[in-house]
């Protein structure tokens, strides 16, 4: 069938930030499939220059409204390594728990608010409140738990208050931790409801081989710091992040791009899952099996399900971390430090993938140079190539215009792009 098709999606909905999709088909052939990030840049790397190191996490957390804890902790890790500050054990555990809170909140937002409507054929989550009340309630319960974990560990659910250089400005309160423990246990039931729903969905059968990049530490599912690894066998130290990212810019996109061994690579839940499957909690591995999700999986649509698998892991691990905090007797939450000159990278697994902050300080602890490489920037080229592949295949299979548009939107959403973040 010879046909022409023009799809112009201006400011794609149900994603964080502003980006457009352009599809052109002429005489039955795909001419163009483009994903353009048009977000307004804010220039955080410039803003941070001259700022005192201790204030920096309060600024960089504002890069993103969804993953502010990851940004704060990436900056903190970079600056602590640059100035050789060792945070105390209670702070390390609290930070890991905070990362779980943020990822749970972010994944729940994507799973139930942004992705689920595509599968249910609705424009938003709002009609699902009537048609799938149990599912929406489960989603809200998980999201609320994520926010509650962030609040107890960092003082607030968006833009953390108590994550500071050297440790924490304030320890989580005992009573809050006890209530949180009960809440985590009670909300595990919501995971079952979610898994029941997502296991029945028809996930588009599509795969395009790519390289998955994540952190890896060999002993626990990755969160803060570790080796930089790829599914193509690359292994680097945290400070060598530039060799992992090879960042470049192209006209027409305010988000930059990265690459490693191939034309593109992927970061995020699926990358973490593919590179660290053995370190997931057994219950999370069981849910993955139920979804037919096995490493190494190259279907980008499965990223959404990998997020749910991670939620199962998070609730199990968060329970242990809260118990560990309750058992800690030391009141030490912050290591005093003297500002000094240094340079280091802090890498963390933000909800959408590996996030790098590199910081250099002068003798007074003022930042002289900063570099932030965002997960969505690392997925930018992969999204672009997936979009071309899926649009090309859909056209060849003779899918209708609306089916093609739907698949294109869905493949982009499956990356859960954080576009404001990528154009920091």
């Amino acid at each position, binding site marked *: 069938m010879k046909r022409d098709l023009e799809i112009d999606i201006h400011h794609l909905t149900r994603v964080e930030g502003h980006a457009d999709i352009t599809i052109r088909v002429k005489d039955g052939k795909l001419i163009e499939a483009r994903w353009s990030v048009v977000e307004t840049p804010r220039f955080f790397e410039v803003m941070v220059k001259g700022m005192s190191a201790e204030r920096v996490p309060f600024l960089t957390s504002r890069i993103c409204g969804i993953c502010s804890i990851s940004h704060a902790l990436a900056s903190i890790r970079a600056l602590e390594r640059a100035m050789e500050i060792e945070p105390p054990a209670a702070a390390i555990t609290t930070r890991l728990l905070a990362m779980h809170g943020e990822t749970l909140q972010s994944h729940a937002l994507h799973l139930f608010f942004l992705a689920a409507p595509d599968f249910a054929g609705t424009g*938003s*989550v709002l009609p699902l409140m009537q048609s799938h009340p149990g599912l929406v309630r489960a989603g809200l319960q998980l999201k609320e738990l994520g926010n509650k974990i962030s609040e107890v560990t960092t003082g607030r659910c*968006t833009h953390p208050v*108590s994550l500071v250089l050297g440790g924490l400005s304030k320890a989580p309160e005992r009573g809050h931790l006890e209530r949180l423990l009960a809440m985590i246990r009670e909300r595990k039931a919501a995971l079952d409801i979610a898994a029941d729903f997502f296991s029945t969905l028809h996930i588009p059968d599509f795969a395009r081989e790519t390289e998955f990049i994540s952190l890896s530490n060999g002993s626990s599912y990755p969160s803060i710091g570790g080796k930089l690894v790829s599914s193509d066998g690359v292994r680097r130290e945290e400070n060598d992040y530039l060799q992992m990212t090879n960042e470049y810019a192209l006209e027409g996109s305010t988000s930059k791009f990265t690459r490693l061994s191939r034309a593109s690579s992927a970061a995020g839940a699926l990358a973490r899952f593919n590179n660290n499957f053995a370190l997931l909690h057994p219950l999370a591995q069981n849910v993955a099996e139920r979804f037919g999700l096995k490493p190494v999986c190259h279907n980008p649509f499965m990223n959404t399900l990998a997020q749910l698998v991670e939620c199962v892991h998070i609730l199990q691990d968060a329970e242990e971390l809260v118990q560990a905090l309750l058992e800690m007797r030391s009141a030490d939450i912050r290591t005093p430090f003297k500002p000094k000159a240094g340079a280091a990278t802090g890498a963390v697994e933000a909800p959408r993938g590996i996030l790098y902050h590199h910081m250099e300080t002068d003798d007074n602890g003022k930042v002289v140079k900063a570099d932030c490489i965002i997960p969505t920037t690392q997925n930018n080229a992969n999204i672009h190539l997936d979009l071309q592949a899926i649009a090309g295949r859909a056209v060849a299979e003779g899918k209708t215009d609306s089916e093609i548009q739907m698949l294109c939107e869905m493949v982009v959403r499956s990356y859960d792009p954080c576009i404001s973040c990528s154009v920091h």
Partner: protein
Amino acid sequence: MKARGFTFEKLKFASFDFTCCEGCQLQLANRESALPDFLGLLDIRNFREISSERHDDYDIAFVEGSISRQDEIARLEAIRRQAKILVAFGTCACFGGVNSLKNRLADGEAAAEVYPGMQVESLPVRKISDIVKVDLSIPGCPVTKEEVERIAVSLVTGSLIALPKYPVCMECKARLNTCLFDLGEICLGPITRAGCDAVCTTGKTACLGCRGPAEDINMPAFLELVKERGLSQSDLKEKLGFYNAFEAFAANET
């Protein structure tokens, strides 16, 4: 919508974002236990971040973010033409926010540094009210959802909307916190508008003034307090400039 025997019209609501992190809009989907009731107040006509339904027949527009590109000005002006009530939503919209830190650099300098050799447009950062008339401001980085809920109820019922006039210090004292000045740190709590329930100072970090100046603040006395205690003037400058919310008082700085 019916409540306590009265019938109310839902707000024909839209939410838009400009140069920002979208964290304030995200608060609209937080406080999950109250979310069904909150959403019950709104007829969401346009909210790109969570819905693919887009309609242009809204009455109330929440606008998050500051303005730093020409296309944003045109978009904002179109929203102003449609909205009966335009709300500057969050610190970036109200004051320019952290984005304003870029304005220390000459035009084009930041873009040249981050995107060498590429044409990337970036105007000096401006707050929403520099471009269009703003009917209501809800400050905060991020906004406080409880306050947003109260304001939404006031909008639905047509009752008076008022932000606290007093400073964060009042809320901080009510939470029985040790004063950060007594711990040797500069805190903007004495001059910043309350309404956040002193969330930062309760977490033992200094208030950076995201909600902007409280009403009738005594800036000279505050600056004198910092001087008297021998605290760092460069720290004071960094804090006052963080959100660009004390721009009007910049001339008084020592």
